């Protein structure tokens, strides 16, 4: 029988039952490999459930550092009888099945083209532990121990992680180490080892950090100076607000008074959440909310008001499959249009597209600055894949000389010095007016905030010219935004290319890997990672300097492509959608295949002949 053999390059998937304590054991497994200097990218595939339904944890081990989902499974740790049949189907031919053989499994339930490794996990647990909960929890550690023998993971790497986790909690430390030993001892004595899949120490992790995007974005909100957070629980964004609470407890408590330099409100719904954010933003505090698609739908009326009344607000949208009863625990990039044009009337909003946790941090900080600078809602468009999975990424950095950009705020001193104040007056030609914070001056700078019925000095007006003035100024402001948002990242092919690829957000790791394979097939493509909407000159240039541009997205309708056509007047025939939207993260395999096939079908010769445009 064929055997898959691979060192530092394989996929292992754990099939568990939700609520069985597997999550922390599986994370321990992934981190132990990181500690051996080998990059991993784990992904949670979980149901909308707390206890009892199936859950999976897929770990891609890849020395080269490809962090996208690969697809296919080389080793399945099948701990859930409910999903046994489907789990077995996913194993690649010549791959491995690890299972609990305490109870006999009927022979026809196996496949004959895979290697089967049975271990009496339940029996071992029952022999060692009396308490049912302990039996359950330590079973997970025991299989980690066994896997460490099968895959040659260093015992010290795991033991060290357990020691860090239970530092100062000796009561928990010793039994965990014992369970690890039980697993290792049994595997060493009874199982054929190592198997064809191995982990070997390398040096490819460097100073990278390992965390999920929701934590990173929350930290960005702390560093970016958000002092008010209002939110309503919704998967997959809830852990962002909760992480903000934890970081604030750590970093934002006045050491003398023990009082908080922040306010967090769990609102009654997303409408109230964005209302609170707007009230705070209007009143000069940096404020944000974290939500997902259904929450944005509820916020849209307020978002229109924020756009027209010019109120700073930061909205972090951790995208999931929509609608509300859709796929709340699956990933998608399907809220772009809903956010870009959210609300009634002529509205347009700024969107940022972080690619990983590091950029979640950076874009959260940038969004808080941009919201103040542009006096408008700013969306950070992350997704479940980035938000709820730990990802290896560049460490955070901060320049201590950096200050918050509070934008155009007219102070009492400026008013006293005779500066002319008109709340909606374009004094600098960039479409951005000055604002005052409420309470600034006894007789100057006060104004009445409302939607569209006003003139440049915020006086009630239903006159057409006043409306036009504001609407055209808002358009100018949106143009100004193009130069202030994070600019796209260009990767030119080694030889001149006439075909380009545009992608964004969580597609990044899969795209990075796919381009190597595409080039290996002789296809030459320039890449542009779009990092924000509205699109600036670099995006215009990229589209116009290529004959065809593939737009790779994780939604059905090609939403970014629609926005390119809509905003830039691009000929639709020149922007070709490459779409992945089954709820699983996009893979390099998918991109490579889809682009290769499309190029063949369109008879595109990717190499540029003649002069470079």
């Amino acid at each position: 029988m064929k055997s898959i053999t691979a060192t530092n390059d394989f996929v292992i998937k754990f099939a568990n039952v939700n609520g069985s304590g597997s999550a922390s054991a599986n994370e321990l497994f992934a981190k132990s490999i990181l500690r051996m200097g080998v990059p991993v990218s784990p992904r949670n595939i979980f149901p909308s459930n707390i206890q009892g339904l199936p859950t999976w944890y897929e770990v891609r081990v890849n020395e080269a550092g490809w962090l996208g989902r690969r697809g296919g499974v080389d080793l399945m740790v099948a701990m859930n009888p409910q999903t046994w049949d489907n789990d077995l189907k996913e194993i690649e031919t010549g791959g491995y099945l690890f299972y609990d053989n305490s109870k006999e499994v009927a022979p026809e339930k196996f496949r004959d083209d895979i290697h089967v490794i049975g271990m009496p996990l339940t029996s071992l647990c029952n022999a060692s532990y009396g308490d049912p909960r302990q039996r359950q929890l330590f079973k997970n550690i025991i299989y980690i121990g066994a896997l460490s023998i099968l895959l040659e993971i260093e015992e010290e790497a795991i033991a060290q992680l357990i020691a860090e986790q239970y530092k100062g909690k000796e009561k928990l430390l010793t039994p965990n180490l014992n369970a690890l030993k039980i697993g290792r001892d049994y595997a060493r004595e009874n199982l054929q080892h190592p198997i064809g899949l191995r982990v070997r120490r390398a040096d490819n992790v460097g100073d990278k950090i390992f965390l999920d995007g929701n934590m990173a974005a929350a930290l960005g909100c702390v560093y970016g100076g958000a002092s008010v957070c209002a939110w309503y629980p919704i998967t997959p964004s809830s852990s962002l607000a909760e992480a903000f609470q934890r970081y604030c407890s750590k970093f934002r408590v006045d050491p003398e008074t023990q009082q908080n330099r922040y306010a967090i409100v769990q609102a009654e719904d997303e409408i109230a959440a964005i209302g609170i954010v707007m009230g705070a933003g209007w009143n000069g505090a940096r404020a944000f909310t974290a939500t997902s698609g259904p929450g944005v739908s509820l916020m849209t009326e307020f978002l229109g008001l924020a756009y027209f009344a010019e109120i700073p607000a930061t909205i972090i949208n951790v995208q999931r499959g929509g609608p509300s009863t859709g796929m709340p625990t699956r990933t998608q990039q399907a809220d772009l249009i809903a956010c870009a044009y959210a609300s009634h009337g002529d509205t347009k909003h700024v969107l940022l597209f972080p690619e990983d946790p590091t950029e979640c941090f950076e874009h959260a900080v940038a969004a808080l600055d941009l919201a103040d600078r542009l006096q408008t809602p700013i969306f950070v468009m992350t997704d479940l894949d980035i938000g709820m999975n730990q990802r290896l990424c560049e460490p955070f950095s901060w320049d201590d000389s950096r200050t918050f950009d509070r934008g155009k705020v007219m102070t009492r001193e400026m008013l006293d010095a005779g500066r002319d104040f008109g709340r909606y007056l374009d004094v600098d030609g960039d479409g951005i007016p000055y604002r005052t914070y409420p309470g600034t001056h006894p007789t100057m700078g006060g104004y009445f905030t409302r939607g569209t019925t006003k003139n440049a000095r915020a006086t009630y007006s239903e006159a057409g010219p006043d409306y036009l003035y504001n609407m055209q100024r808002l358009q100018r402001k949106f143009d100004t935004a193009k130069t202030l948002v994070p600019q796209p990242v260009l990767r030119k092919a080694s030889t001149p290319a006439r075909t380009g690829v545009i992608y964004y957000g969580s597609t990044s790791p899969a795209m990075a890997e796919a381009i190597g394979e595409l080039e290996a097939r002789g296809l030459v493509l320039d890449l542009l990672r779009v990092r924000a909407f509205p699109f600036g000159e670099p995006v215009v240039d990229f589209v116009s300097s290529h004959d065809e541009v593939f737009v790779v997205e994780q939604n059905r309708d090609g939403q970014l492509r629609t926005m390119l056509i809509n905003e830039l007047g691009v000929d639709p025939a020149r922007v070709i959608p490459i779409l992945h939207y089954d709820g699983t993260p996009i893979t390099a395999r998918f991109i490579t295949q889809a682009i290769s096939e499309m190029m063949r079908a369109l008879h595109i010769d990717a190499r540029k002949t003649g002069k470079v445009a």
Partner: protein
Amino acid sequence: MTYLAKPRLHHPSLPHNALGYTRRDYEGRISTLCAGCGHDSISAAIIQACWELDIEPHRVAKLSGIGCSSKTPDYFLGNSHGFNTVHGRMPSVLTGANLANRALLYLGVSGDGDSASIGLGQFAHVMRRGVNMVYILENNGVYGLTKGQFSATADKGSASKKGVANADSPIDTASLALLMGATFVARSFSGDKGQLVPMIKAAIGHQGAAFIDVVSPCLAFNNHPGSTKSYDYVRDHNEAVNFLDIIEGRPEITTDYAAGTSVDVVQHDGTIIRLRKAAADYDATDKVSAMNYIQKHHALGEVVTGLLYIDNQSTDIHANLNTVATPLNALTEKELCPGSAALAKLNASLR
């Protein structure tokens, strides 16, 4: 009412308050509501209360939703910042504004469509959270701007202008505010300035969620026989439980009241509310009996007015959240950003 600009000149003998302001300095733009609208009387009462309390107009933030009542913040305190938000959602915007700067006075103005229908949820939750504010509901039982539909506060059996009886049960916002945890709940009538002005002053002095339901007849659509929100009906059925005098840190005034007929409540800011009892057995500090009293008299067709409930030990959202005394909008990088050293430590913990 009119498009005529308001003359800026005023009579030189108008009295000044301690800040040197006349009442005119507390006015706003000229009202565009119908002549005789109860809402304009409420605006006048707000102006009077703020002037009497020597409140700096620019230290007031006035917020509203959508509707006739929500237009009124434009008609008083012209030097204050105002925010005309979206329909029914003023409470959340006010909450956020209050979180950002606890040092201002927050005045929320709303109507019955705004607070009892589309915004009932936000109305309930802003009371629960104890946001420090004065929330005035200008209650006329009818949708004015959309020309005369019943609102959720219209009494069952009350007739519309066209003679149709309302079949739905009314929402009593004062009872709801009590239930939700408001710590100052009052009801008044726009036609009774003598009762309303001290009530607004007392609400301003209150630390926490202060709610005043003001029955404010709509002359255009709800002032006819058969309506329970008309001037005539409210005048005939107004059952005041008490009358208020506000004593601001001055030596006690020595008006004589018969023993047991008045009670003093000291507020956080040192002002004293002297409640002159109209209903002998009414105790404004007893929440449960207040609810019973309101319901009992409502069943009799009466409109119970006065200071219905006050919790003198009230706290507010900032106390609940344990926020710093400095307004959050005044905190700088120094207080808000942990800096690079902390970040390096964090990085190290994530490997």
